[in-house]
């Protein structure tokens, strides 16, 4: 989670660059400490629990929003298992043979924080934000799951490590056998669904300033607000890790030796993993400052009438290919 401040800084710099502004440049070199200063400011602000709110849920909601994203990061394998003292040390916090399913379950959980926050605030804008979050998550999680199924069919396993190892091969020695190339449609669907699940533009309808003031976090202030803020960036980071693992070969490089477990090589794979994640994060940020926001009915149309049928067709196609 130490990534978040850097991410916020990059986001503000990129947005400034796109909009031809300077961006933060006062605190520290290149304004690098700006997020830190913001965090301190938020910490010292008055923590308001407005009248008429449901106190218990109001306080619970930000924590519920943050937890799933943090947990999601634990199941991602981020490097080649390292040989330490004759034992293989897996570079993954939480190992298990059902990793992919856990990620799906956790993304489903992230909506509760938003929904509870919106409801407990006792404010119609916040409530609408929470409602939108519920509908959006529910719709796009189906598309996400369908895209995931075709990847699982390709790899033949739900273990994230196996999925990474499955992508280490190459075609003709240099084109990597990444799932993004083997399952391009699933990749695109998953990518769009990930934008929707993390509430990033063009899908940030639960919090769109133009219509709903601040959406579900309108009534929040101080540290509770920053926890929501943090949750959004943590979720973005976690989804980029997931996309890298599922579609971009995880920590592997095309044609590398998967049996080399020396510490140096392991660290190299970790660097490869985070390089891929960084590229994705940059893409997320650029998209945010480039595309306008969807209207809510357009969002639902895209989710139910385009992405879900495409996902189903892709599964059928993958199955037919696997048989034939």
């Amino acid at each position, binding site marked *: 989670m130490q990534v978040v401040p850097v991410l916020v800084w990059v986001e503000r710099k990129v947005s400034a660059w796109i909009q031809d502004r300077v961006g933060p440049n006062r605190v520290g070199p290149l304004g690098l400490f700006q997020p830190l200063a913001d965090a301190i400011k938020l910490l010292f602000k008055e923590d308001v629990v407005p009248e008429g709110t*449901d106190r218990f*849920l109001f306080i619970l909601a930000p924590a519920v929003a943050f937890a799933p994203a943090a947990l999601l990061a634990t199941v991602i394998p981020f490097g080649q298992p390292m040989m330490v003292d004759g034992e293989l040390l897996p570079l993954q916090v939480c190992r298990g043979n059902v990793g992919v*399913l856990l990620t799906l*379950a956790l993304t*489903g959980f992230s909506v509760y924080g938003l929904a*509870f926050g919106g409801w407990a605030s006792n404010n119609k804008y916040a409530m609408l934000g929470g409602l939108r979050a519920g*509908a959006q998550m*529910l719709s796009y999680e189906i598309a996400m799951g369908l895209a995931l199924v075709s990847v699982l069919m390709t790899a033949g396993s739900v273990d994230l490590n196996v999925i990474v190892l499955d992508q280490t091969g190459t075609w003709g020695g240099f084109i990597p056998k990444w799932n993004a190339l083997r399952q391009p449609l699933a990749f695109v669907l998953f990518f769009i669904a990930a934008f929707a699940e993390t509430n990033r533009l063009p899908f940030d309808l639960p919090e769109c300033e133009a219509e709903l003031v601040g959406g579900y976090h309108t009534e929040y202030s101080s540290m509770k607000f920053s926890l929501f803020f943090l949750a959004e960036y943590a979720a973005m980071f976690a989804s980029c890790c997931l996309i890298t693992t599922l579609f971009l070969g995880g920590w592997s490089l095309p044609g590398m030796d998967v049996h080399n477990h020396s510490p140096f090589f392991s660290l190299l794979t970790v660097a490869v993993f985070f390089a891929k994640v960084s590229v994705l994060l940059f893409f997320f940020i650029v998209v945010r400052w480039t595309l306008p926001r969807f209207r809510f009915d357009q969002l639902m149309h895209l989710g139910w009438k385009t992405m879900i049928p495409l996902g189903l067709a892709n599964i059928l196609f993958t199955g037919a290919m696997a048989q034939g």
Partner: protein
Amino acid sequence: MNLRDAFFVVFSFLAIFGAFLTVTRRHPMYSALSLILFFGAISGVMMVLAAPFLALMQLMVYAGAILVLFLFVIMLLSLKESELGGERPWPLKLLAGIGSTVLFGLLAAAILRAPFSPAPPVPGTFGSPDAVGTVMFSEFVLPFEVVSVLILAATMGAVILAKRHLDRPAPQADPPGGGHHG
């Protein structure tokens, strides 16, 4: 008492606690919150009982989908105090309590009288996605197909029920699966 037993006891008590909260809260929102606790605890119980795949499906289907649906409807209705409906008078509640206690007593008497063998050791792959899938798509493929038809029927029923106007074509703005602008 080993670790497995300890986890079983903790998750069981959490599940019972969550279940009691769910049926006693006044506002459905709090019932839904207790239900999250309940589903999580049941998932833990399943994990202890060597069913990791089901434990995760429990989280995905119940906590991730069904409960979000409940939450969505609760928020959509945004019930005022007058719309919550009345409560039954306490003698009736007491009667219901006694009735369900008697039901539990009968079940418990039957359970405690039966002789059960201790748990046989099972392989590590027991309850893994592969194992469940193999059984489901070979031996139980007919029930599986019947359930898919049931779900199709339920989807269509839910859409028809939630639509406002059946007689004229829906406007473009109407998303499938229920009007959001309630």
